[in-house]
């Protein structure tokens, strides 16, 4: 905002300045609400997959059961990793609010790294299951399992991709209003995926081994 402190720049922007801010605020409010509606439709998408798992989650077709396949300590680490990544993004939000560009970038890099660990763990888990002959084609239980957990993983993967894009924009444009807004949406998305994971580990893994 230093540019506006110059006398000539000030006179130039004096009239449109408050209006521009109001327009910005209104746009942000509308954009956030629109993105929120997308998230709520995603809730419905996940609800259908949770419903499918609830219905066929114990149809093993003579194949392995959740109790035989799931390694709870491993899932607990995955859960901790995703939670850590979610909290790390909280620091992205805080740094962005304080207009600290370098700190924002650094925290986002950390969020990305921890999120990438989660994806690697999940891919390893899937690979391990398929190698054991417990792939998605083995039983209704495993079809539902791979679809549900895979859809969540795909969302996390998309979030990581989004972070790379945001990181580039942040490095190029700094914490401009547009970048701030997009970071806000990315934060909503990232925290939302952790909320979905709560239901995944409860319904699929914890109840699945009982």
């Amino acid at each position, binding site marked *: 905002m230093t540019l506006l402190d110059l006398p000539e720049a000030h006179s130039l922007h004096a009239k449109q300045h408050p209006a521009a801010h109001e327009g*910005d605020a209104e746009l*942000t409010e509308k954009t956030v609400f629109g993105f929120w509606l997308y998230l709520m439709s995603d*809730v419905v998408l996940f609800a259908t997959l949770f419903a499918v798992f609830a219905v066929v989650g114990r149809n093993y077709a003579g194949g392995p059961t959740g109790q035989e396949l799931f390694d709870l300590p491993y899932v607990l680490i995955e859960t901790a990793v995703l*939670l850590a990544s*979610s909290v790390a993004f*909280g620091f992205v939000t805080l740094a962005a609010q304080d207009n600290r560009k370098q700190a924002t970038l650094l925290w986002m890099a950390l969020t990305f790294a921890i999120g990438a660990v989660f994806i690697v763990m999940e891919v390893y888990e899937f690979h391990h299951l398929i190698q054991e002959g417990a792939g998605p084609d083995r039983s209704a239980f495993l079809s539902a399992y791979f679809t549900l957990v895979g859809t969540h993983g795909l969302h996390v993967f998309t979030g990581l991709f989004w972070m790379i894009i945001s990181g580039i924009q942040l490095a190029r444009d700094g914490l401009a209003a547009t970048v*701030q807004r997009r970071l806000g949406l990315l934060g909503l998305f990232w925290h939302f995926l952790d909320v979905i994971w*709560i239901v995944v*580990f*409860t319904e699929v893994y914890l109840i699945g081994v009982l």
Partner: protein
Amino acid sequence: MADHKTEHLPGAGASLRHYVRGLILSVILTGAAFALVMMHVLPRDATIFVILALAAIQIFVHLVDFLHIDSSLEQRWNVYAALFALLVVGILVGGSIWIMFNAHERMNPGMPGMTMTPEAF
């Protein structure tokens, strides 16, 4: 802190306090759920009931401390949209479980593990 361009963002009003509180509560709630299942403290049905309750509480914690949903007027429409989504989820999940288990019982009387055992006939 939050100047003009950040006050309408999702994280507006967020503070370190929120994230620390969210983290501590999540660790406790998640840890309790895993411990209950891994150490077989309670009977099966009671365990399921308690870990579902723990999950519901943790979702609430995440919504408040990480997604910063509150009852302020500005967020009214977000909350309405969330409540409507919750209704759809209830119909989808509750309805599916209700209908499919009913159909299952009617179509396979006497299957092992069903509530209707062959002895009932």
